[in-house]
């Protein structure tokens, strides 16, 4: 098992390494995938620019993981439930979260998690690996009700060291839950490299102990990611249980905007990683098939730049929530002692109050 190569259809130059699935013979799905990968990349740049200019909080870049996020979200049906970690903005955007609300979340405003377009999808989990168990709970609900849906959850390579991850794989195996786990193995958990994270040859092998299939995929290859997701989701829909997908990729950016990866990572390593990056790979392939040309490229980049700029502008125009919102969602009905604290907070926020801020 451990000497298997990761599932791959395109090499780093975008050349097929094996017979491609039929859907690759027409441009539609590939172009759609490419569109969102470019959108993810530009959203990412804009978010970092906003953070650097003090207009966004600490932000976790998804640079380098575009093929994973986009393939996962495009493979899911609307009725499936996404249980993301904190690096899945592209998934959330594809699943209907408006761009300005993604900015709003990273801008420190809970309303970024409130979008009704997200349906029953979970908000970002910041504690590590806890979300894997939520996905199993969601999948349990789906199974108990006999529905043909699945829960999909993502985690980083660092998160696989946590008990929650192993507990989630375990219950998913025992209860044959309709859930798909995706490890975004981007090689670095802040400064800790993959080799310090686990002595396992493949993180996908962690599935063995749970009795579920674990497959390793080239996470920079959108076609391979699509195929792996389709197989895993189909398995879930058919009541056959869970799948673990280890998507091998590389975190091309810092861990977050608060991190400086040059402290612990060599430039050579980063340079080599850029040669395997997912966007170029898919573009090269589409060009070789005559599915894409320079005019289309320029038109797309321009269209996305406009979209992202508009979203950033509308985000920046959203006024902060009233101070009472700190209290209003703690419980379905506010306990009376909190009524008193809520009143204090409002008085202190008024002009002349100790917490008054100009412009609010």
């Amino acid at each position, binding site marked *: 098992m451990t000497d298997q190569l990761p599932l791959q259809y395109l090499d780093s130059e975008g050349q097929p390494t094996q017979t491609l699935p039929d859907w690759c013979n027409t441009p539609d799905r590939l172009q759609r995938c490419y569109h969102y990968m470019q959108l993810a990349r530009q959203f990412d740049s804009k978010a970092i620019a906003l953070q650097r200019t003090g207009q966004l909080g600490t932000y976790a870049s998804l640079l380098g993981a575009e093929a994973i996020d986009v393939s996962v979200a495009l493979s899911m049906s609307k009725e499936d439930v996404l249980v993301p970690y904190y690096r899945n903005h592209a998934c959330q955007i594809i699943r209907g979260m408006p761009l300005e609300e993604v900015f709003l979340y990273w801008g420190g405003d809970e*309303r970024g998690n409130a979008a009704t377009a997200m349906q029953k999808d979970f908000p970002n989990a910041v504690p590590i690996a*806890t979300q894997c168990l939520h996905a*199993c*709970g969601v999948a349990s609900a789906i199974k108990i009700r006999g529905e043909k849906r699945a829960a999909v959850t993502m985690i980083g390579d660092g998160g696989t060291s946590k008990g929650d991850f192993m507990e989630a794989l375990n*219950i998913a195996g025992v209860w044959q839950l309709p859930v798909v786990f995706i490890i975004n193995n981007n090689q670095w958990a802040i400064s800790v490299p993959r080799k310090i994270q686990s002595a396992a040859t493949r993180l996908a092998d962690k599935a063995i102990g749970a009795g579920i299939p674990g497959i390793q995929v080239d996470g920079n290859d959108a076609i391979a990611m699509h195929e792996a997701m389709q197989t895993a989701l189909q398995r879930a829909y058919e009541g056959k249980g869970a799948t673990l997908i280890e998507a091998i990729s590389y975190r091309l950016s810092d861990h977050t905007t608060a991190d400086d990866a040059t402290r612990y990572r060599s430039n050579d390593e980063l340079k080599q990683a850029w040669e395997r990056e997912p966007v170029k790979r898919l573009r090269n392939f589409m060009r070789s098939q005559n599915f894409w040309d320079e005019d289309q490229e320029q038109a797309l980049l321009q269209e996305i730049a406009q979209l992202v700029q508009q979203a950033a502008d509308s985000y920046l125009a959203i006024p902060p929530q009233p101070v009472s919102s700190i209290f209003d969602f703690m419980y379905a009905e506010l306990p009376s002692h909190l009524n008193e604290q809520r009143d204090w907070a409002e008085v202190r926020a008024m002009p002349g109050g100790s917490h008054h801020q100009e412009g609010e």
Partner: protein
Amino acid sequence: MIMSSVCLLEAVNLALASEMRRDPDMVLLGEDIGVNGGVFRATANLRDEFGLKRVMDTPLAENMIAGLAIGMASQGLKPVAEMQFMGFIFPALEQIICHAARLRNRTRGRLSCPLVIRAPFGGGIHAPEHHSESTEALLGHIPGLKVVIPSSPARAYGLLLAAIRDPDPVIFLEPKRIYRSQQQTVEDNGEALPIGRCFTLREGSDITLLSWGAMITETLQAADQLAQQGVSCEVIDLASISPLDLDTILASVRKTGRLVIIHEAPRTAAMGAEIAASVAEKALLDLQAPIARVTGYDTVMPYFRLEKHYLPNTQDIIDSVTQTLEFV
């Protein structure tokens, strides 16, 4: 309606069965709760009536149980999870604190987490280490949770129904020392008792005794003995650790002028301290004596050969009341 004489443990079972018949979305999960009916038998016979899909034995992992319940609750199920002992709840605290308590606030109400986590707690049954702690203050400190402790079969039935129907996460702590010690007639009428309200068990004019859980037993015994000495004690069962019903406590203290708080949890940073501070803030001039606390020590709960030394007893309460009454 069926009237039956039940103990606290049977009242829990009665409430679970009653609400499962009413609400098809309600499910139970936990270790040993299925065929075995729970190590204390709180879920006895429920697997037979409601089947595998609604009464789920889980692998042995408390954190997993809590995480699963959160996922289930987010999709509209009503999970009631059992932690076999409160001492084993610690691995699950990350899930409870970081997610269950915050999902509604985090999503501005788009998702919520209406789950119940039940756990037997407290000392006095000769259990091994880690089975006897009272750490309700840890949970009472967490915004977004409700924490409820019954002290009689009837209140166990009514408060558990309320906990299950509550739209927010509720931690339901069952005082296992009195699981079987008291029988009471409980009508299975589906009527819930209010969460966030104290219960005045005995009216009095000289002093207020405030307690909860198993310590209510010693508190009532002390009040009986003190009555024979001519001391009129008002006895209040706090019942809800969070949210606190300060109104009832303050009204009582304003009437009696004296307050003794009795709990078996360690003294420092416990619920007694919180209540004493609140009463001092709001009713200092109504007090005729300092607020007294009768509590466990700030030590590890000893193994059971010494647990009687740790747990406050009736005489401790009487002594504290006497000192409070003698204060000038």
